[in-house]
């Protein structure tokens, strides 16, 4: 059972010849070497769905915090204690209501984010490999090309799984397409974003701010230049971090684990068991 994102590598798997099942407490399983599991008939389970709402909540928390300068306010008021008189000209943020949100990779979590954004009267665009006209109707979201999404969005949020294709999906070229006033939110996986390109883009004012719940590596080294910018929020992978949600994830992960040990169908399986009984 994995809780956290320590890699489950081919070497580690090779040390346990009787390994029957790997149960991930989380929805992303990019840290598990699935190919090796497939070869050895090891079952792999994860916890999709149950954390979508809570992760969408965190996405909105990061989006709003960046938009309204919550961390610079903290620095001004509680850290440097520069708050000496009422100043109507400080810490101006950007409106979230009626702004344009671009969702990259609209799966379960992206869907939940779209629902929340629409309640703020945001215009919501999405890019996804397979278009979902039923979701467009249900949520009032618009399908666009990846480039168009980057060009017109005020807020861009990433909800893709980490694969070879999505590694450094957001790099120099993509950041250059974004608006100078735009804010990027990454709650997917660190390697989806090229961190040095992100730093350059922020430093040069190519985009206005960023909030990341995930980094590469995690934790990111605290002397990374990205952390020195005052328009970057870095959260310590809190996407699903509430007691209620983690309890439900733990229960699902146990169900997966028990099924895997018995050689039965995993209720939430990435790979079903395939070993001789």
């Amino acid at each position: 059972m994995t809780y956290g994102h320590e890699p489950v590598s081919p070497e580690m798997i090779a040390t346990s010849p009787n390994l029957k099942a790997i149960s991930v407490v989380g929805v992303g399983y990019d840290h598990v070497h699935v190919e090796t599991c497939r070869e050895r008939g090891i079952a792999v389970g994860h916890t999709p769905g149950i954390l979508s709402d809570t992760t969408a909540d965190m996405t909105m928390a990061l989006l709003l915090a960046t938009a309204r300068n919550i961390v610079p306010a903290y620095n001004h008021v509680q850290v440097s204690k520069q708050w000496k008189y009422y100043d109507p000209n400080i810490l101006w943020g950007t409106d979230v209501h009626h702004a344009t949100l671009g969702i990259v990779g609209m799966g379960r979590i992206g869907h939940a984010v779209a629902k929340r954004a629409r309640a703020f009267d945001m215009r919501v665009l999405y890019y996804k490999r397979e278009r979902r006209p039923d979701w467009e109707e249900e949520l009032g979201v618009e399908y666009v090309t990846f480039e168009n999404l980057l060009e017109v969005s005020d807020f861009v949020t990433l909800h893709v799984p980490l694969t070879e294709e999505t590694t450094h999906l957001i790099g120099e070229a993509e950041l250059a397409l974004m608006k100078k006033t735009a804010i990027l939110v990454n709650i997917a996986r660190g390697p989806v974003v090229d961190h040095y390109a992100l730093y350059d883009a922020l430093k040069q004012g190519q985009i206005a701010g960023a909030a990341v719940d995930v980094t590469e590596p995690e934790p990111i080294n605290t002397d990374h230049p990205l952390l020195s910018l005052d328009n970057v929020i870095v959260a310590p992978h809190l996407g699903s971090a509430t007691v209620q949600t983690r309890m439900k994830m733990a229960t699902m992960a146990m169900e997966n684990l028990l099924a895997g040990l018995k050689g039965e169908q995993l209720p939430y399986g990435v790979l079903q068991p395939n070993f001789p009984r």
Partner: protein
Amino acid sequence: MVQPGEEAGLKEKIVAIFVWIAPAVTRELITSLPNLRVVGNCAVGYDHVDLAACAERGVRVGYTPNVLNKTTADMAWALLLASGRKVVEGDSISKNPSTSTFDSNWMGQQVSGTTLGIVGMGRIGYEIAKRAVGFEMKVLYHNRHRKSAEEEERVGATYVPTLAGLLGESDYVVLAAPATGDTHHMMSREQFAAMKPTGVFVNISRGTLVDQDALAEALRGGVISAAGLDVTDPEPLPRDHTLLSLPNLTLTPHTGSATLPTRQAMVQMTVDNIKAVLQGQPMVNEVALPSL
């Protein structure tokens, strides 16, 4: 800009004041300006303007309702989510040089599917309620007067006749009531004790509605889990104030309406209010003064 020595005679020239939420427009100030005709208050709250003194002197008062409803509601939600999900503390952990791993069991409070309690269902309270539907939250409200069934239905809000009743049932409490004689320190020890220990309190109205010592005690003692404040009493707080040292408190320096389009709209409205009086036109956004 006034040059030294030019002040004499200036008081007689002043016919209008353009003011934000500070400094206070006191009786002393008003009576020192013999030809003052209008106070253009660039805010929706006017508790810092001595309305009785204005009424006595025939000075009219403008304010800026409605143009800041949505931007302020966004801020209420920014504080609600930041407080519940520990955004500021989390950011500090990530950036702290002594952090080497993330504790997977360091967690915040659930938002989706919980109960939001709005105290003061005015224009801003309504916008706050509207946003809750995306999070599938149950919405309760307490207000001096119950809203119409149609208004309640529009945001799916249920009226709770007592403040204590709302506090006991809510996971998130957002205070959006005006500062009046009745609302002074309406949130004190008893009220925080009525909240759930997992409860989160957000205030975007005025600092005087909260007994800050009681809030600090409640946050320190785990009586409630976290709070977010855009307003305090006074503003700013003294640098050594106890609230400033609490890790489960998120503070913003009264920036609820602080975006360019909203501030532009507020300034324009204030200028229009002032011009209306000086040109003998009706003032669209006028504060009703107390009768003498």
